[in-house]
Every structure is written in structure tokens, then in C-alpha cells.
């Protein structure tokens, strides 16, 4: 088992894939390490959010993901 990281919207193009698996447990530093330079740079931007367990984190740097968890990387939205 591992942590599944989902790339949403333009981040999927940037990563070149829809998702990637990382070893658990996963924290903020581990996340930046595993997503590649380009996506990591985006994650540093305030307008890019991180969701975990179906909730958007108020402070994404406090990420603590365990085995079997899903972490979603959310760039700025454009709906309607």
C-alpha cells in the first residue's frame, strides 16, 4: 500500500500523468520530492491547494498522509 497523489487540471499535463503512488507516510517535504520539479514549484504558490481525505487543507504544509490515503493537487479552478 501507498499514498496515491492525484494531479488535477493543468497539473496532470505538467506531471505527464494523472496520478502517482508514493511511499507512506507522506508529509509536505515528501510530497514536493515525489511530484517533480515543475509541479513542486506550482505547489509553492498560494493559489494551488491540496486536498486530503475529501477536504481541502487549510495549511497544506501540515500534510500527513498514511497508507491508502488519497492526496489531490488542485490548481486554480475555472468552471461555468
Amino acid at each position, binding site marked *: 500500500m501507498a499514498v496515491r497523489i492525484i494531479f488535477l487540471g493543468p497539473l496532470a499535463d505538467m506531471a505527464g500523468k494523472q496520478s502517482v503512488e508514493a511511499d507512506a507516510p507522506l508529509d509536505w517535504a515528501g510530497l514536493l520530492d515525489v511530484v517533480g520539479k515543475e509541479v513542486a514549484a506550482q505547489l509553492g504558490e498560494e493559489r494551488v491547494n491540496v*486536498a486530503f481525505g475529501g477536504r481541502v487543507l487549510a495549511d497544506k504544509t501540515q500534510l500527513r498522509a498514511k497508507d491508502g490515503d488519497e492526496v*489531490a493537487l488542485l490548481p486554480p479552478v475555472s468552471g461555468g
Partner: protein
Amino acid sequence: MKDVRLLTEEFIPGTLVGPFTQAHPGLGGVCTFVGEVRGGEGQDMGVEALELSHYEPLTLPTMETLADTAIERFDLMGLLMVHRVGKMRVGEPIVLVSATARHRRGAIDAVDFCMDHLKAAAWFWKREKRADAWHWIEPRADDYADLARWDK
């Protein structure tokens, strides 16, 4: 009555708005907005298709919360909120918001409120296909300014 849906196939707004309106006897007003895939002129020239992606665990729950907020804030009798995901062609409907209320102002404002939030604060990502390739659509400053109006 609250009716919130994410659809993967094309829909015909009238077939949804008719029954929704019928479900609220005694209403004073119903306001409906339908957004469609724009094409044809200016910077929209050459758009062949549009694709909307979402994130299942967040997108629908966020729309439900938005609907609840609008119903309470504008004292609605009912709210219908429908959003497409997947690939769409020019002229296809993307989004539908319809509100029923005892008085017109609540219905009109609720639709405006929901649309501003769906554009800039709901979990959707939009890209358009042109002759060369797919291009992601960045949110515009106007979208955020529209959203901020409701904080006052």
C-alpha cells in the same frame, strides 16, 4: 426542493426547468441561467470543443454546500443546479442554475450568486481544443472580482 447534479452527457435545460418549476406551486418568480460553450467570434474563433474535468470527492459536495447557502441566504423555495463535465461542442449547455422564490429579487440574486461561485470557487478545470492543441483556461481577474461582490 434542492436538486444538484453533475452530468456526463448533454442535457436539454427545458426538460429540467419545466418539472422543477411545476414542483413549486405558489411561487412568485423563477429565474434561470444557462451557460453554453461559446464559439464563433474574436478570441473564441477556432474553438472546436471544450472539456471540463472535476474531482469527485470535492466537486459535488461543494456544489451541495453552495446550494444550501444560496437557499438560506436568498430565502428560496427551490434551487436547481446542474453542471456538465466531460467533452462538449460549441452550443452545448455547460451549466444551468434555476431558482424559485416568493419574490423576484431573491430568485435573480441567487442565480447570480451561484454562477459567480461556480465560475471561480467550485472544483472544475476547463480546457478548450483549437486546431493546434488543447489549452487550459485560466480564471480571469473579473471572475474573482465578481465573486468578491458577495462578501460585502
